[in-house]
């Protein structure tokens, strides 16, 4: 056992290694932004992918990093969506970017209030409680149809040009650039959060709540905090959907939406931030492709893929991912020796 004398900066490097920007990440984001120019005809579906990616990211924050399972993340998605819709419909806030921030903060506030309900209990109770919250919100929307438009949805939303400059066009060019930029910014923020001391303590809480509290961490405090943040993320995703489609409906609160986002996360992988984004990408492309092949039975194939993923197991798919990674790394330019 030869242990060379250690210096704090070396140790710091070892800890911060997790947060290092990988080459493949940089490539990914460059490619993502390149799609703005490369696929101008596909901006509608790309917008949807970016929004769902953000939504899945929100679920990953609580499930992947804090171990809170939720089948009701749509509660915040819908709430954010209706916030943005109402702000625009009543001309309260006409700047879309500002309305987006307000919708996110409002959803986070709702997340904070409801977080206390999910603190206690097992996974099963959490699934039930989160599901229940989404159902309650949906029915509230149904009941107060004077405000929400009930089952007809929120009609007559007109979204002003972004920053007073960029009009939302029918091809979705502005919408896509806007959604992708929001996803990127919130992704950066999430990346910062999960690699911070706070993020590390979340992993500790997820790994072993008993021990986490035995080293002085307020487990409930951390769970409330991350649940609140994730609710804000989901709210922004919902608000983006409302703004880019100029429509909000009660379907935003639906169980299917909560279930779909969980599916995306499982497909992409939990516990790393790209899982949600990749999951949304794969899910949406697969859905789009399958729907064009078999318009009526595409869900059959989605179901089959899901069963295969769970049965084969992520571990056994891992070598495949490793091989792909190696392939990508081979493309990497040689670093010049410093």
């Amino acid at each position, binding site marked *: 056992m030869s242990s060379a004398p250690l210096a704090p900066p070396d140790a710091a490097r070892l800890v911060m290694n997790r*947060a290092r920007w990988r080459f493949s990440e940089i490539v990914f984001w460059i490619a993502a932004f390149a799609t703005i120019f490369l696929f101008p005809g596909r901006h509608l579906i790309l917008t949807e992918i970016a929004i769902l990616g953000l939504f899945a990211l929100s679920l990953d924050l609580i499930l992947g990093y804090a171990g809170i399972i939720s089948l009701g993340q749509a509660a915040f998605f819908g709430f954010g969506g209706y916030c943005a819709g109402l702000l625009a419909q009543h001309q309260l806030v006409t700047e879309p970017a500002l309305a987006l921030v307000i919708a996110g903060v409002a959803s986070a506030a709702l997340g904070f209030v409801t977080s206390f309900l999910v603190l206690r209990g097992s996974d099963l109770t959490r699934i039930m409680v989160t599901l229940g919250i989404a159902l309650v919100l949906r029915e509230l929307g149904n009941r107060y149809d004077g405000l929400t438009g009930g089952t007809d949805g929120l009609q007559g939303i007109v979204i002003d040009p972004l920053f007073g400059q960029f009009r939302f066009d029918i091809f979705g060019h502005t919408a896509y650039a806007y959604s992708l930029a929001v996803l990127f910014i919130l992704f950066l923020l999430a990346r910062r959060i999960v690699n*911070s001391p706070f993020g*590390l303590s979340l992993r*500790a809480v997820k790994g072993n709540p008993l021990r986490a*509290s035995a080293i002085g961490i307020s487990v409930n405090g951390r769970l409330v*905090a991350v649940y609140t943040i994730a609710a804000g993320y989901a709210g922004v995703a919902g608000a983006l959907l409302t703004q880019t489609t100029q429509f909000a409906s009660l379907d935003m609160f639906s169980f299917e939406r909560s279930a779909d986002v969980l599916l995306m996360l499982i497909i992409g992988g939990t516990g790393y931030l790209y899982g949600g984004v990749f999951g949304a990408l794969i899910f949406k492309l697969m859905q789009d492709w399958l729907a064009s092949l078999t318009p009526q039975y595409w869900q059959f194939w989605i179901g089959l893929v899901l069963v295969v993923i769970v049965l084969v197991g992520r571990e056994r798919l891992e070598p495949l991912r490793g091989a792909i990674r190696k392939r990508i790394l081979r493309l990497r330019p040689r670093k010049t020796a410093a």
Partner: protein
Amino acid sequence: MPTVLATENLDKRFGGIVAASNVSLKVESGARHALIGPNGAGKTTLVNLLTGVLRPSAGRIMFDGRDITDLKPHERVRLGIARTFQINQLFADLTPLETLGVAISERRGSGRDWWRLAGSKHGVMEESIELIERFHLADVMSARTAILPYGKQRLLEIALAFACRPRVLLLDEPAAGVPEAERHEILATVAALPHDVTVLLIEHDMDLVFSFADCISVLVNGALLTEGAPEAIARDPRVRAVYLGEAANV
């Protein structure tokens, strides 16, 4: 010596089972206090009561003259009571360096910082390194905890409690399950704990207890049977009868 940690008539019942009955234990500041007793005597229950994992059915727990009976586990840690677990309770996906960093940041009040990278505080890293070396973890410090040899996990278990800079450290069978070859490393580490830290040791290993403790309490069926210096305990016929029976030749 002033008393730092004390229980007053502590009771704990699980349904009809009495796990602690009228326990009044006093731990003196700076002591090397051992708690022994046969299996099922309620030793771990007592640790769980002291650290707030369990709430007593009756009685009080005092720390430094203050009633802490109603404090939550993490609040007691902040006051200066830390513990290790009989069965490792570690963070499988974190490295020892990260594990210790979490505890140290938490104690220094920077554990909730979300805007800076973990590892960017010099003081925290300095302290982590100190602990890594003190507890012989340098060669595994950046490996996932889940894949560490059991003996190293045991050391990390103690290091993690120590990272909380406790005034009272509760060690719940620190050498439990450690193979003979790695045992001396644990025992040496326990023996080398600084004397300003009060230690309450729960242990089955009589060699360790008698070489380490300056005061021993014997727990039987959830109640304190007797208490005293190691020599007196070793001579006590009641203790021999209930506990040392098979190990009377120590």
